[in-house]
């Protein structure tokens, strides 16, 4: 092989330079205003990070994505010409600690806003404190808690769709392509119940039917005895098992069906987020379908922004760390951190943010936003933002496991994920 034939992988620094240039061009007209920014004092973003506790493996990738996004943001000139800092504070994936962290970030570290929380119970525990402190609290959680109206006006989820929208938008594809008689296997608690309720209703609306619900106790370690409950006429088996028994679940399901006929399998990548899809024991998933928030494997039609995003975060074409091909990222969720940071930038600039006195204006500016186009700031895809419910809506991917890789076979329509508003936060006082 000649030396010239070697492919030169761009270094991270090159990529970031490139991103900076892209940003500078995109922002061209605004640069004059940046130069006039009155204060060079950095904008401080408090990041509530699941560094320890059960969210730690997600936290690691959220931190990595946020750090990468921050570099791009600052290379583009920061926010309103001011440099931006992120302060990561560990919440231990605990709601009480979460509330303490919000307070610490706002009162001690004098952060302008707080963002980044993933786990729902931490969001629920922290949101009231954010409301009391009157600080914008931008969550990256995927939970339906924001749009359900359970929180307050200071809490927004602009960077990721919620689980209700995700689950519901799967129904048209499943009923039209995989089958109309569905059996659902889910863990027997709130998460599984959400899937049960949202999907059962959505399938019925599409003219299909969920013929059996099989609820599995959360502490179950073996699943063989549940499989005979799957009705013979089942055309689609919808599975959303999570936790350390997932590999066992798939392995035993494979043993149950053997090489004979089986229903179509449809799952949520939450089950296998950060798990290599070609892990031993997952062979039975070959040919099955998954919801993905953001396709883990680089798709053939990926745009430039997708490649720039991967390079900046340090993720290869298989969704794994560039330094370790077995270290799979939480790819379907972590884009939300990136996108939220850029939405915050837009909102702060629209509100001409100068200091904590303008926090309310940031929330109002965000509520006034309606659309986020796909691009460098939104690599996962375009989104619509509902200012009344404080929730973003977007496109979902359905991928099929082919040769141990996830290949996108369908992208939902925006309206597949719509549902009637359940709250209007804009009518609430601050």
């Amino acid at each position: 092989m000649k030396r010239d034939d070697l492919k030169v992988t761009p270094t991270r620094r090159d990529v970031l330079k490139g991103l900076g240039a892209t940003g500078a061009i995109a922002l061209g007209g605004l640069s004059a205003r940046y130069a006039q920014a009155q204060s060079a004092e950095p904008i401080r973003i408090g990041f509530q990070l699941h560094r320890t506790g059960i969210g730690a493996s997600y936290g690691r990738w959220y931190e990595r994505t946020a750090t990468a996004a921050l570099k791009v943001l600052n290379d583009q000139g920061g926010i309103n010409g001011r440099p931006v800092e992120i302060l990561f504070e560990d919440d231990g994936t605990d709601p009480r600690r979460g509330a303490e962290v919000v307070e610490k970030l706002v009162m001690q570290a004098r952060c302008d806003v707080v963002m980044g929380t993933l786990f729902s119970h931490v969001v629920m525990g922290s949101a009231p404190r954010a409301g009391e402190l009157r600080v914008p609290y931008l969550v990256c959680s995927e939970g339906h808690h924001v749009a359900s109206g359970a929180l307050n006006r200071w809490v927004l989820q602009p960077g990721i769709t919620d689980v209700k929208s995700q689950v519901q938008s799967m129904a048209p594809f499943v009923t039209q392509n995989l089958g109309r008689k569905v059996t659902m296997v889910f863990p027997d608690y709130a998460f599984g119940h959400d899937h049960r309720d949202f999907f059962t209703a959505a399938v019925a609306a599409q003219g299909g039917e969920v013929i059996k619900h099989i609820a599995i106790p959360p502490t179950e370690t073996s699943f063989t005895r549940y499989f005979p409950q799957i009705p013979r006429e089942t055309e689609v088996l919808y599975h959303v098992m999570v936790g350390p028994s997932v590999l066992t679940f798939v392995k035993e399901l494979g043993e149950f069906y053997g090489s004979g006929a089986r229903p179509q399998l449809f799952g949520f990548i939450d089950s296998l987020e950060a798990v290599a899809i070609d892990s031993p024991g997952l062979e039975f998933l070959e040919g099955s379908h998954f919801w993905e928030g953001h396709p883990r494997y680089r798709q053939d039609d990926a745009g430039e922004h997708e490649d720039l995003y991967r390079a900046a975060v340090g993720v290869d074409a298989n969704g794994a760390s560039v330094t370790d091909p077995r270290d799979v990222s939480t790819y379907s969720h972590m884009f939300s951190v990136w996108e939220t940071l850029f939405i915050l930038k837009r909102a702060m600039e629209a509100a001409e943010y100068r200091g904590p006195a303008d926090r309310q204006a940031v929330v109002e500016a965000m509520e006034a936003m309606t659309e986020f186009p796909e691009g460098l700031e939104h690599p996962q895809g375009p989104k619509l933002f509902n200012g009344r419910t404080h929730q973003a809506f977007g496109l979902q991917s359905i991928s099929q496991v082919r040769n141990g890789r996830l290949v996108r076979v369908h992208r939902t329509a925006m309206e597949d994920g719509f549902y009637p508003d359940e709250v209007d936060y804009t009518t609430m006082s601050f």
Partner: protein
Amino acid sequence: MKLLTLIAAMALAPGPAFAHASERMVIQTLPTGWYMLGAGLAVAITALAIPFLRHLPKVRATCLFERPRLLPPGVTNWLAFGLFWVLVAVGLSGTPDPKENLLPLTVWTVIWVGMTLAVALLGNLWHDIDPWRAPVGLLRAALSRWLPQKGIGLSRLEHWPAVLGYLSFAWFETVSLAPSDPAHLARVAASYYLLVLILAVLEGEDWPPRGEFLNAYFALVSRVAPFWAEPRGDRLRIMAALPGWRIPTLPPLSVSAMAFVTLVLSSVTFDGLSETFLWAGWIGVNPLEYPGRSAVMGVNTAGLVAVWAAASALVLGAIALSLPGGRSRHVAGPLMLSLLPIAAGYHIAHYFVALLTDGQYVLAALNDPFGRGWSLLGLPEHWVSFGFLSTRSGVLAIWSFQFAVILVAHLAAVIVHHSVWRGLHLPQTLTAQLPMTALMVAYTILGLWLLSAQTIG
């Protein structure tokens, strides 16, 4: 009412669930049950076969080589003293991220995990980096005129202050809300340091090895080490023996030392147990939506103490069953020495994954200690990586190491037990061996089960 509403809202909060790739996911697919059976059988057969051996091998330590001391005594202790306060300053004013701040990384990974492993292999290295030793000596010399001649009576309490210290430490690590928060940890560490400094200055240099928990802990763990250094004038003799071989030569444990050893063993056991689905089920918590430490603080505090009580009762009960008629009272002290290899071995196995993961954060933090983008150790960006936890080969390698450590620790414990037993000229009957043998087999299996069970997070 507000609180009730919040709790209800949290319980009903619709939301996603997040699994993650941990070694516990892959290990569920490994035949760990056979390993447990094999290890249990190996310990049982060893324990039951030993009474039929006429002689146990004699304790023989070999001097590998001699070398001069590299530094005058106390220099490393002064360095450790300085480093401790630098780390406290880093904890107070450095990054709040516990995986980047060198204070929590040093306390929880370098000292608690790494130092235990080092001391269990190489002898009591803590002695040389004990940050109290040098300043206590200096202060006592300087203040000798005003200090009470016979101390303040702490020595009469034997190991009890260390028991209290260790229990507080174990609670802080396993149960409290934010043990890794750098600023919080800095305040706790500095307060504890000053408390011990004052007490040691008042009581004397001989007090910390028994009364201060870190000194007491490392002194006990060091007894299992296959290598150690013995000072001889200004030279050091580097010695070697089989792991745990020196234990039978130790003086019997006092009641407070017995309490300390059982606490060491049971606190790490509880740390493992409290992470399992089994424990979550017992305390009525759904492990798949674990509510966080704040929700289980009370029950886990009770659990920590209960496991300690249960472990102490089981060990004392087994010894009592071995020697009925009140004869066990005087032999519990020497016989409980056999728990030392188990305590050290389980600690190493339990924290091994933390060493492999958080150890990377330590190196990454040293690579760029001030977050300036430096690469002092030449580590590339994104160097920290946990891919090995989700591969079959990686998990099998980790499990094999843990299995070997647990097995060796229990075999050493069995041999120590018999060696002490013979030294006490106790009856060599099978019935006398059965209770302790059953306990050691059970603990072998429990240890391996804790390392392979489904865990939260």
